[in-house]
Structures are given as structure tokens and as C-alpha cells.
């Protein structure tokens, strides 16, 4: 079950933050996303080995906290996507396809000529598409 998705911009400013549970405290999820930014920075600036992993966009499992798993993804423009989930047995391929669809929704939102780069994403369509993607996460593995 996905509890939170976030889009964080170039200077680590939040561009879009959405949580999907009523029970949990939204602030705690924001805090988790904030902590994961450090992990992303460290992964990006010190690649574990040179070669193929230096240029990957999907960063994988960032770190597991008490009941959550946090996944990261970075685009070519240093915009980061963070996904917080409570599932214990999440398949890697599922997360990758989730990020791919999320990236495509993000590109569509940014292509809006009225969107100012570096400011919050205010598009209603983007929010709807994200909700659809989150709802269909894990239930089927279609592209």
C-alpha cells in the first residue's frame, strides 16, 4: 500500500507532496521524505562502482524504516521522485513500472507552458493521474 509520493526539485524544494492514508500523520511522512533526500544525494554523488550504474535513473530501495520502505528515482534534470510504501513484499519490477508511469505524468505536467519550472505543480490532471497510478500499483503488472 503506497502511503506517500513526492516530487522534489533541483534545490531540494518540494514540488508535489501527496499522502494517501488518513490514519497516519502526514507530517511524519513528510519527515521521512525529507530524510531520504540525504540518502539520494549520497547515492548520486558517490556512485558505488563506475560504469553502468552511474547513469541509472532508478535508485532502488533507499532505506527501510520501522514499517515503511522508501524508493527513489532521479531524472536527468536532477528532479527526484520519492515513494513511501508499507508493503513488505514489493517486486522491483513493479516499482520500476510505477516510476516510469509517474515520470510520464510528470513530463506531461511540466510541458504545460504555464507551469513555471521550480514552482509547485498545481495541475489537477497530474493529481488525478497520480491517484490512478497509485491505485493500480501492485494489483497488475501492465505497462
Amino acid at each position, binding site marked *: 500500500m503506497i502511503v506517500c509520493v513526492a516530487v522534489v526539485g533541483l534545490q531540494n524544494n518540494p514540488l508535489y507532496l501527496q499522502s494517501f492514508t488518513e490514519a497516519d500523520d502526514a507530517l511524519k511522512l513528510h519527515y521521512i521524505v525529507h530524510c531520504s533526500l540525504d540518502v539520494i544525494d549520497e547515492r548520486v554523488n558517490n556512485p558505488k562502482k563506475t560504469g553502468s550504474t*552511474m*547513469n541509472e535513473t532508478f535508485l532502488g530501495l533507499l532505506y527501510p524504516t520501522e514499517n515503511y520502505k522508501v524508493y527513489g528515482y532521479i*531524472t*536527468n*534534470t536532477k528532479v527526484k521522485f520519492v515513494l513511501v510504501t508499507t508493503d513488505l513484499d514489493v517486486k522491483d519490477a513493479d516499482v520500476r513500472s510505477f516510476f516510469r508511469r509517474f*515520470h510520464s505524468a510528470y*513530463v506531461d505536467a*511540466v*510541458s504545460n507552458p504555464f507551469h513555471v*519550472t521550480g514552482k509547485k505543480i498545481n495541475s489537477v490532471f497530474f493529481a488525478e493521474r497520480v491517484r490512478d497510478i497509485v491505485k493500480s500499483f501492485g494489483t497488475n503488472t501492465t505497462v
Partner: protein
Amino acid sequence: MIGVGKVKQYTNVLDKPLSKGKQEVSLSAFAFLFSELVQYNQTQVDNIAELERRLEDAGYGVGVRVLELLCHRDKGNRRETRLLGILSFVHSTVWKVLFGKVADSLEKGTEHEDEYMISEKELLVNRFISIPKDMGTFNCGAFVAGIVRGVLDSAGFPATVSAHFVPMEGQQRPRTTILIKFAEEDGNLAQREREICAKNAAFMWIYFRRKCGPALLSFQGRVVLFSARTNGLSAARMRERDLHIMC
């Protein structure tokens, strides 16, 4: 999605699903739009430099979005972290998507370490434009310069980009050159490139050494050529530059 079975016959044309549409825009539509953009900006400014700056800013927005779109659509899961990589990306992929062909050439400047030039016999945006004599060296290619600046800036390589006319003998119209000057302070860019090259070289060195022990001297040349990409750059300039980096 239309299934792979038999095609349904639609009685009413309104019931047919929308076609995907062509991936191209007509040149005349774009030329009209661009000429209107230039004319609109002309009424708002007092001098040429301001007009050029406005066109460049218009192109900047396009460049940022083009980078996002192309990285997601065409590049799959790769990110560009190398200077040569991003330059050849601009030179081939971006040009192909925007103008339907790759740029004519990509060259490295000889005076300064961090200057590069993309030249084109005739920019698509300039095709239906002729500059009056009293506007001096104004070039509507400033729009394209803005696009390139947008792409480089959002990829993490800040640069100043400008468009110039370069007269060529034997040709009626001058060639257009987009000059890219990278703006890293204190030579950080060259330093970063050196580090990445050194890391690559060290990796290759260990690999080669394990494979075949002696003949170390001939490695250096091969390692250098191996570790840098050679898309579009003239080979002689490349080798000289990379040997310089290795020393």
C-alpha cells in the same frame, strides 16, 4: 485500443476513434507563429540586445521541457553526466526531434578550454527571415540558442549560448554557428571531467592489466580513446585534448 481482431465498420464518422495524428507540424504554420513571436517582441523593446534576450528566454522554456520529454521518451533510463555526452545529445537527438535532421557539425573551440560550436548551414527558424541592414548583427537564431541553453542548464551544465553568422566564401548566405561557452567557476568543469576520466582510466587500467600484463605504454593511448566518446568530434582534436587531460 483497437483490438487485433477484425476492424469494426463505423456507420457514423463521429464514432470512429481519434487517430494518433502525425508527429510533424507544417513548416508554414511554424514560420507564421515564429514571425509573429519576433514581431510581438519587437514592439515591446527599444534595442536589439533586449530583443535577442527575449527570444533567448522564450527558447529557454522550450529547452527545459524538451530535455524532460526526450529523456523520458528516447533515452530510457540513462542520465547524462558527461560533457561530451550532453553535447552529442544536443547535437543529434535534440536537433533531430526539433528540426528533423542532426546538426551539421560539432566543434571544439581552439582558444578556450570550454568553448564549443554547433554549426548549421541554415537554421530552420531563419529560413524565411532576412535581417535588414540597420539591425546589425542580430540573429533570430537566438531562439535556438535559448533552447540549447535550456537543455544544458537543466542537465546541470550552466553555459552562455549565442548565435552568430559566419560568412563562408562561395556561398550566398552565411552559415549560422551556435557558440556554447560553459560557465563553471574556477575550472570546476574541467576538474570534474578530469576526475571522471581518471576514474574511467583507472578502471580500464585494472581491467587491461589483469588481461595482459606488459605493454603498458601502448595502453595509455588506447585507454584515452576508449574512455571518451567520439560522436561527431573531429578525431584529431579529440585525441589532442584527451591526452592533455590524461597528463
